[in-house]
Each structure stands twice: as C-alpha cells, then as structure tokens.
C-alpha cells in the first residue's frame, strides 16, 4: 500500500506543479497583457496577414506565433483572450460553487423539507438540455460577459448541489456529528465545523473542474458568437476564425486550441493535485 501511495503522491506532486505552473503563467500573461503583448490584439494590417510562427520561413520578428488573415497577432490575441477565459473561470466557477455547495449542504445535512425542495428543483433543472438552455438565456439577456457568467451559474449549480448533498449526507451519518450533538453544538455550527471541513476537498475538486468547464462553455459560446462582442479577442472566437483558414494558416486555429486544452486540463489536474496534497486523511 505504501508503495502505491507514494507513487500516487509523486505523480500527484508533478501534476500539481505542472498545472499550477501553466495556470500561473496564464494569469500573469493575462493580467500583464497590455504591457507584455507584442502587438495590439485588434490592430489589422493586411500587409502582415497570415504570417507563420517564428520558426518557419517568412516569419517576422515580433509576431511569435504568426498572424491571422486580418494580420492580427495570434500571441497577443491569446493573451487577451486568456483574460476573458480566466475572468469567466474565476467568477462563474466560484459563484457556481458557492450557490451549489450551499444548497447541497443544506439539503444533505438538514434533510426534511429543505432537501425535498432543493432535490426536486435539481431534478427539474437537470431535465433541460444545458447548451440550449444557455443559448436561450443569452438570447433573452443579450450577449456579453455578464450573460455568459450568469448562464454558466444557472446551468451548473446543480452539479455542485447534487454531489455536495450526497457527501454531506454521508458525513452527517458519521458518529462525530452525533458526538457534536451530544456535546451540545447547534445545527448550524455543526454544519460549519464538522461537515464543511470534510466536504471541502470535494468542493475544491469540483470547483477547479467547474473552472475548466466554464472556460469551455465560454469558448463554445464565443465560437457561436454569443459571448463578448466580436471585437474582443476570445479563444472560442479565434478557433472559429482559424477554422476558416486552416489550410492556409493552421496556426490561427492550433495555438488557441492548445491554450484552451492546457487550461482546461490544468484546472482539472489542479483540483486532483490539491486534494491529494492537502487532505490530512490521505497522508
């Protein structure tokens, strides 16, 4: 067992560092984009259109990852697009987690009518096809960052509510919860001191997964032009545009795809890695 566990620990450590590394780089790049981006992400220049990335013939210095068909710098657009992706990931992810986990904890620990109401609501909610639901919501609210964030929260809180409810129910049946009751602790206080710390690792994993999902959803919505305004660079938008010129300039499609892929992967691995690292029970 020890051997298996140490192996898990080692790979978990590597996972944690790689994913945290990529995400840190991305955050720095996105925050400092106005200063470090080599070009203006919106500047069109047909003289520099479809320049290849730096290692290929015909590349121009200053356009490291090449340019798209309108001559806009791919690297700069990825950096700026990262801002949108990260804002959506952080705000939508956190808000979804807060709302879903709170409802899940209440349903799972207090049970009774609260559970009845929340569980039925989750059941009904999950019967809607999520992507159609999102498109419908945005059609009503209008496009824009806020709409994207709200759409993600509205659709995905059920994921947290369901999992956290099950976890809270399991923890609620443990004797240390009964023990807290015997020593006279109130219900709310028991929820916060006994149950919450034990479901926190589950919430963390879900939260990072959710951040990855938020990034994908945002990309899908920008792909179909329902996210932020078409002027602002987004990864989904870049992928949509790059698709049209894949035979002439593959880099316009491939680099934002790689950024998207690494980011989503990093979020999910970060969650697993954090859980392994900070769970005292696993040590």
């Amino acid at each position: 067992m020890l051997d298996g566990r140490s192996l898990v620990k080692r790979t978990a450590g590597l996972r944690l560092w790689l994913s945290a590394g990529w995400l840190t780089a991305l955050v720095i790049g996105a925050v400092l984009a106005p200063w470090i981006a080599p070009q203006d992400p919106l500047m069109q220049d047909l003289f520099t259109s479809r320049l290849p990335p730096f290692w290929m013939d015909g590349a121009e210095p200053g356009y490291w990852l090449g340019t798209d068909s309108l001559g806009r710098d791919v690297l700069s657009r990825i950096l700026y697009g990262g801002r949108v992706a990260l804002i959506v990931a952080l705000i939508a992810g956190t808000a979804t987690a807060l709302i879903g986990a709170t409802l899940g904890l209440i349903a799972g620990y207090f049970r009774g009518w609260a559970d009845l109401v929340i569980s039925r609501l989750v059941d009904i909610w999950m019967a809607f096809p999520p992507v159609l639901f999102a498109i419908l919501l945005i059609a009503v609210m209008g496009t824009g960052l806020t709409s994207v964030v709200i759409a993600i929260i509205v659709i995905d809180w059920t994921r947290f509510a369901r999992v956290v409810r099950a976890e809270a129910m399991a923890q609620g049946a443990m004797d240390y919860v009964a023990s807290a009751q015997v020593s006279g602790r109130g219900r709310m206080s028991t929820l916060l001191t006994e149950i919450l710390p034990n479901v926190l690792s589950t919430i963390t994993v879900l939260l990072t997964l959710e951040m990855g999902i938020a990034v994908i959803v945002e990309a899908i919505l920008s792909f179909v032009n329902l996210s932020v305004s078409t002027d602002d660079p987004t990864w989904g938008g870049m992928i949509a545009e790059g698709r049209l010129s894949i035979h002439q300039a593959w880099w316009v499609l491939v680099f934002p795809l790689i950024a998207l892929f690494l980011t989503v992967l990093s979020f999910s691995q970060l969650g697993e890695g954090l859980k392994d690292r900070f769970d005292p029970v696993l040590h």
Partner: protein
Amino acid sequence: MSALYQIEDLRLSLPDMTRKPMFGAAPRIEILKGMSFTIPKGQVLGIVGGSGSGKSTLGRALVRLLEPTSGSVRFDGTDLTHLSEPELRPLRHRFQMIFQDPMSSLNPRMSVARIIAAPLSLHGRPNPREGALEALERVGLPRSFGARFPHELSGGQRQRVGIARAIALRPDFILADEIVSGLDVSSQAQVLTILRDLVREMNLTLAFISHDLSVIRRLCDRVLVLHQGEIVEDAECEALFAAPKAAYTRELLEAIPEPDPKKPWFQRAS
C-alpha cells in the same frame, strides 16, 4: 440510591424507507417495544443483546440523539422525552456518550486536543485546551498526543481519546456504545480498566452497551438483556451469571466460546 434515569414504557419506531410506497408515509418499524427501568446514581448498567435487539437505539434515546415515540425518559427529575434540541443544549454537558467506532466518531480533520476541547469551549468552560490535555492524562495518554490527528493513533488510543472527550465535561452520566467491539483483546482490557477507574474516581453513572456478556461481567453492577426490542431480563450482574432466568440470556451465555478446550461447547460431529 436515588435514580439518575427513570425510563417508563419507552417506545420508539422509525420509518422503514425500504418499504416506503411511492406515495404516502413509509410503514414504521417498532424498535423499542415499551421498556421501563431506572438507573440509580453511581451504577454501572450493562445493556446486552444481539443485533436488532434495540440496544443501540435505546442508548441513543437515553442521550436524546433519537426522540422516543412515546413513554418517558426522565434524567435527574427532568423529562427529556420530547425536549427540542435548543432546550436540551444546556443539559447536554451532564450526559455524554462514547461511540463504537472511534475512527468515525473523531473528526478526521481536527487534532486530538481540538476534538476534546470543542465541547468544553462550547459550554463556556474556562481554558478548554488545558482541560482537554488534562482529560488526555486521565485516560493515560501523554499531553503530546494533543497535537496528533485521529488517523495517527492506534485503535485503542483512539478509543481513549473518545473517553477523554466524554469525561472532559465532567458529566454525571456516560453512555458507552459497544466501545471495545472493534478493539484487540489487549487494548480492550486496557480501555475497560481505564473506564472502570474513571467511573470510580469521577463518581460516574455508566450505561455500557455490548453484545459480549464476558466483557459485561468484568465491568457492570447490573445487566439488562434485550431481545427484539424488549427487556427479557433485568438482574444484578452476579445473579444473572449464577442463575440466568430468561431463555434468551441462557442462549447468549451458552454461545460464548470460553477459552478452555476442556469445557464442551458443541458436540463434535462424528
């Protein structure tokens, strides 16, 4: 001796969720079918029975983790039967519980000192941390154990932490629910010895739930034998072992394999 607990015609039923119809309420299973007994102050009462006898449910009704369906549970003159949780709270420090599984009864994310100190600070006792470390010493564990986490302890040590938490509030009554059934015999004897000494030193009243009559004999003054939700025998410990009255008590006694090959237990098949 005056009675600490007076239990009269205690009944408890729970809904049977496995047989719940799609609409309407689930049928109820009667777990405690009318029990009456008293626990005098300072007595060590053994409660014995097989699975499904209702012994754990009875214990949980005594410390009001479960609410009885009917009948009454009086603790030192106060009727606990249908008190709400907020009404119970000021009384809770007087009756404590030690749980069967020390692993699941200790929050894995808290240090031992915090686990024991939590009830102390909850009831506004001064200097809870010091109180917790003193309780640790009382159960024969060094103070340095306060910094450890439950998963770093052996089974016997964990159960001693469970005892420390129960005695830290200096309660009048402790319910011990199968507290040695998961332990090895060596730590079992140790935990029982510690508990017995504490009962004497702190003048505790103890209800000791177990499926094992041989453990009960070493610890208890009096024994209740439960079978399918009813008390089938209520006797002084020595009397029960010398001359068991109920057929079920005799069956339980005969089922214990005593470590002695010379005493026949069942006939060897030919």
